[in-house]
Structure formats: structure tokens, C-alpha cells
């Protein structure tokens, strides 16, 4: 009998204490349950991100350099022309059947010595298919134009020496200025240079290696807590990140970056008052408490270009962010055994370390590069020191919008 009573008391104690015991699951548990029960309704941010990325790709495609029909023409022209010469490593289409009849004076010198021979076209504008005659070409200050001098090939015909000139590098030729016969010693004074202006195939300007970027990233802040006491639970809240950084193009696809960044983090803690303190019929009276911090960070990291060309790219990036907490810190602690919350900011860890990971689409327009994409930031050390009952590491999930400009 005594044995049974002792057993009953022990078991009763176990049941009571086990029933009092509560733990608060992390957010990912509910997310997994939700996604399982509602598979057709994935998180809307994912859908929006996909729509946004698809939209940017569409814009980039429609604004790409060469339209498909022109690309086809280039290919056809490249195949049909027999003569090609190379300028600066790029093949140049040489027009067939273009003959230059030597003129006795250069049009650049404004002399206009007529010859008895008929004036034949010296070149053809591939875009407009119009013939260009030497004596009708006005003198143009070459300094005002971005011109490529093309080599002149000698082409021997049956009756006379004629010269072909390289006409176009691609179908976007807009102007032919003059022609000079470099190989005919007798006519070298009379024939003018033919130079071709190409609006697109200009030599690339020397790009600056440094760039300046400013950005902002609204986010949702989660606390990944491990509780010593089971009387509180964290709910996510909003955060914000703003900053400026300097970028250095180390290689064609890799950039280093560093700068300054300000972060605001906030999350809510739901506390429950101990039954001893609660006079109501409920066992626990919920209390909502807000924890927030202002942080100054020095992010140092790298960006890598994965895909893309010209204006539209897909990049990824990562940073390490030494952080100093400059304000905030509404810490709520439990006093001497039971849940009596007091506000205490002295338990903040002023120094911390964060890491950021991001992937984004960039689009260049009017000299500015815009970027948009998701970002994840993780805090390695707890927000509060070991005297605080909750050890948490904050995780921020956000969307980053930035704009950068290359410094010339």
C-alpha cells in the first residue's frame, strides 16, 4: 500500500511537471505544415520574385543590341562576301564589285578635278543600298567622328586597276566619307581615303574599375532562439538595411566591395505570465514585447557574375559584416525564477558578426546599373550576452534594391 502511494505520488509529480512543460517551435515547422496542406499556394514572395525576374529578362531581351532580323542579315552578308579583312581582330565585310575610279584630286582638299572618265560609285551604303560618289562627299572633320580606317585591298580587274574598299564591319554602317587609293602610286594624290563610320563598333572606352553603389533592403527578421525558460516565444517582425559601398572590378566577372551599412532589426517576444501572478481564469496571460537594435556594419565581400551579356546579368554575392550595435536593445529578462519581465539593455553584445548572401539581376541603363534580388543575413553571435536567458541568432530574409555607377 505504501509502495503504491509512493509510486502514485511520484507519477503524479511527473505528470504535473510534464504538463507544465512547453516549448515553442521555430517558424519553419509551421511553414512546412502550411506548404504541405496548401501546396498550390506557395509563399507569394516566391511568385513575385519569379515574375519580377521574368520581367527583367524580357526587358533585357527586347533591348538587346542586335535584333534577330539584323543578325540574320549579318550572317548572310558574312557568308556571301568573298573578301574579308580584319581590323582589330574583327572581321570586316568587304563589298564585292565596288570599283574606284581614280579621281585626280582629293575631295578633302576641296579640289574637284573632273575627269573624262565616268564617275562610278566608290562604295555602297549597305543599309540604304545607295551609291556613294567621291565628288559628292563633303569634307568632314574626322576629329568629330569616331571613324575606323579600313585597309584597302587591291583588286585587279581586266582592264584597269581598281580598288575595293572595305565597306562595313556590320550592317549598321551609316556613312561613308571618302576614299583614298593607297596602292596606286599614280593616283594616290587623287583618290581620297574612304573611311567608314560605324556607330556601334567603336573602340570600347577604357572602363573605370571603381564603382559606387547605394542600396536598401527591407526584410523580415526571425530569431533562432534556444530558450532556457519556456515562457516566451519570438515572432518575426520587420527590419531594414541601407548602405553604400565601393566596388572594385578585380576581374571581368569578379568584384570586390566594401562600405558602410546601417541595419534596423526588430522582433516580438510573446511572454506568458506565471499562474501565480495571474488572477484570471487563464493559466497564462500573453504579453507582447518588442526587441529592436540599430547596428552599424562594415561589409566586406565579393560579387560574381554568373550569366548574362551587355546590359542584363545574373550575379551572386556574399559579405562578412563586422557589426557594432549603436542603439536599441529592448531586452526583456525573467527575474528570479518566475516570469516577471523587466527591460534591460545592458546585456547587449555590442560587437557582433554577420554574414550576408545575395543573388540578383542587374540591368544597365543610362550609365546606371540597377540590381534587384533576394538577400539573406545571418547573425553569428547572440544579440545579448550570456547573462540573458535567451540565446538567439537573428536571421533576416529580405529583398535588396541597389543602384551603382562606374567611376570614370
Amino acid at each position: 500500500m505504501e509502495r503504491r502511494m509512493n509510486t502514485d505520488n511520484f507519477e503524479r509529480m511527473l505528470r504535473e511537471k510534464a504538463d507544465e512543460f512547453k516549448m515553442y517551435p521555430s517558424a519553419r515547422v509551421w511553414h512546412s505544415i502550411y506548404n504541405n496542406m496548401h501546396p498550390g499556394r506557395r509563399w507569394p514572395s516566391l511568385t513575385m520574385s519569379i515574375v519580377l525576374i521574368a520581367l527583367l529578362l524580357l526587358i533585357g531581351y527586347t533591348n538587346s543590341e542586335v535584333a534577330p532580323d539584323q543578325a540574320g542579315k549579318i550572317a548572310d552578308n558574312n557568308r556571301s562576301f568573298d573578301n574579308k579583312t580584319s581590323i582589330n581582330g574583327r572581321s570586316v565585310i568587304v563589298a564585292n564589285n565596288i570599283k574606284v575610279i581614280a579621281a585626280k584630286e582629293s575631295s578633302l582638299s576641296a579640289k574637284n578635278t573632273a575627269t573624262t572618265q565616268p564617275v562610278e560609285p566608290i562604295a555602297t551604303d549597305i543599309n540604304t543600298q545607295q551609291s556613294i560618289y567621291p565628288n559628292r562627299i563633303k569634307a568632314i572633320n574626322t576629329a568629330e567622328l569616331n571613324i575606323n580606317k579600313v585597309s584597302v585591298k587591291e583588286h585587279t580587274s581586266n582592264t584597269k586597276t581598281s580598288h575595293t574598299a572595305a565597306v562595313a564591319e556590320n550592317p549598321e554602317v551609316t556613312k561613308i566619307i571618302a576614299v583614298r587609293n593607297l596602292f596606286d602610286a599614280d593616283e594616290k594624290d587623287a583618290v581620297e581615303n574612304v573611311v567608314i563610320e560605324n556607330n556601334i563598333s567603336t573602340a570600347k572606352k577604357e572602363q573605370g574599375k571603381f564603382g559606387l553603389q547605394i542600396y536598401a533592403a527591407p526584410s523580415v527578421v526571425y530569431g533562432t532562439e534556444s530558450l532556457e525558460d519556456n515562457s516566451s516565444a519570438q515572432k518575426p517582425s520587420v527590419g531594414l538595411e541601407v548602405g553604400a559601398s565601393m566596388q572594385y572590378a578585380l576581374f571581368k566577372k569578379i568584384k570586390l566591395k566594401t562600405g558602410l551599412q546601417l541595419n534596423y532589426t526588430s522582433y516580438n517576444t510573446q511572454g506568458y505570465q506565471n499562474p501565480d501572478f495571474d488572477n484570471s481564469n487563464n493559466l497564462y496571460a500573453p504579453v507582447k514585447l518588442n526587441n529592436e537594435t540599430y547596428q552599424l556594419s562594415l561589409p566586406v565581400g565579393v560579387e560574381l557574375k554568373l550569366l548574362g551579356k551587355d546590359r542584363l546579368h545574373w550575379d551572386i554575392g556574399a559579405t562578412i559584416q563586422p557589426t557594432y550595435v549603436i542603439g536599441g536593445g529592448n531586452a526583456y529578462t525573467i527575474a528570479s525564477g518566475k516570469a516577471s519581465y523587466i527591460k534591460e539593455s545592458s546585456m547587449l553584445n555590442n560587437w557582433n558578426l554577420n554574414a550576408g548572401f545575395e543573388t540578383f539581376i542587374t540591368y544597365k541603363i543610362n550609365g546606371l546599373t540597377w540590381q534587384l534580388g533576394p538577400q539573406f543575413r545571418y547573425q553569428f553571435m547572440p544579440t545579448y550576452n550570456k547573462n540573458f536567458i535567451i540565446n538567439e541568432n537573428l536571421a533576416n530574409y529580405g529583398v535588396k534594391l541597389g543602384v551603382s555607377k562606374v567611376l570614370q
Partner: protein
Amino acid sequence: MTEEQMLAGCLNNNAASQEALYARFSPRMLGVCYRFAKNREDAEDMLQEGFIKIFSQIHQYRNEGALEGWIRRIIVHTCINVLKKNKKFSDCVDISHAQGLHIREESVTSIIQAKQVVECIRLLPLGYRTVLNLYAIEGYSHREIGTLLDIEESTSRSQYTRAKVMLEDILIKKRILSKPKEKKLLTAIAR
């Protein structure tokens, strides 16, 4: 939201009702899972699986008894199924080496935190811990435990007896229970 409203919403697969029901019962149910699991991550996995079953089988709840009791049974069964899938209670101590039982007078309980007791329960070997959880806390009989765990009823009884003794030792060593006067009772344990 009342319980009836939550139930009605869950029957219609309403997300808000499901979330409300989850928010109300998940803290205690995670505590249940934690007593069975090896660590917190495993406990959360059990909880997740359990609630998916609850929402999928909510139409089977007949309003006979408290909703929490029904939910708890599903959670416990989910925990057992996960444990059976991962391990076969092979780390039980061989009962043939059992010695005389020390039956203690009622222990003097100091201020005992629930978490401390639960953590001490988790220190027990898996087989002892599971049987103790099911019998002493969840209220299953040894016959039901035998069916759940695919063991003999007598095995369940023996494991529970040894689990209780071991748990008391742990609680005393951790100064959660005060050391009482001991009455030694010679008992022969079936070999």
C-alpha cells in the same frame, strides 16, 4: 477564435483556422515530442508530422472527449512511429541483472522546474524513457504499450520499474529531489 470555430475552419481546410489551432496546441505538443525525441530538431520533425496528420484526419474527431486529448494521442502515436522507424529499443538494460529495488518514502520535493524534470527524463535510455513517458505521463496501460511498441506486457512492466528507479536516482543526484530515508525491500526479479 473558439474551439468550435477552429474545428469548423479546419474541416474546410481553412489556413487561418489551422494556424490558430496550431498556435494554441503546438507549445504543449512540442513538449510532448521533446520527451520522446533525441533532440529539439527531431522533436520539431515529429511535431510537424503529427500536425499534418491532425489536419488530414480532423474529420475523424467525434467530439468525444477533449480536443487536446485527441490531438495528444495522435502526436504520441506519431512520436512512437518515428522512433520505431529509426530505432528498435535495443538499448534497454537487461532485466536479468536487476537487483533489489529500493522503495523510497515519499521524496521531499523542492522547487522543481518542469524543464529540469523533462531533461532528466531525457537522460534515460530510449526504451526506458519511452515506456515511462507512455505509462506514467500519457496514461497508457502496459498492454497498450506492448501493442504500440511490439513488446511483451511483462517487458513493459519491467522496463517501467527500472526506468522509475533510474529517474529517481538522476533527480536526486541533480538535487531536484531531496535524498529521503530508504527502505530496502528485497524483491526477486524474474530472471
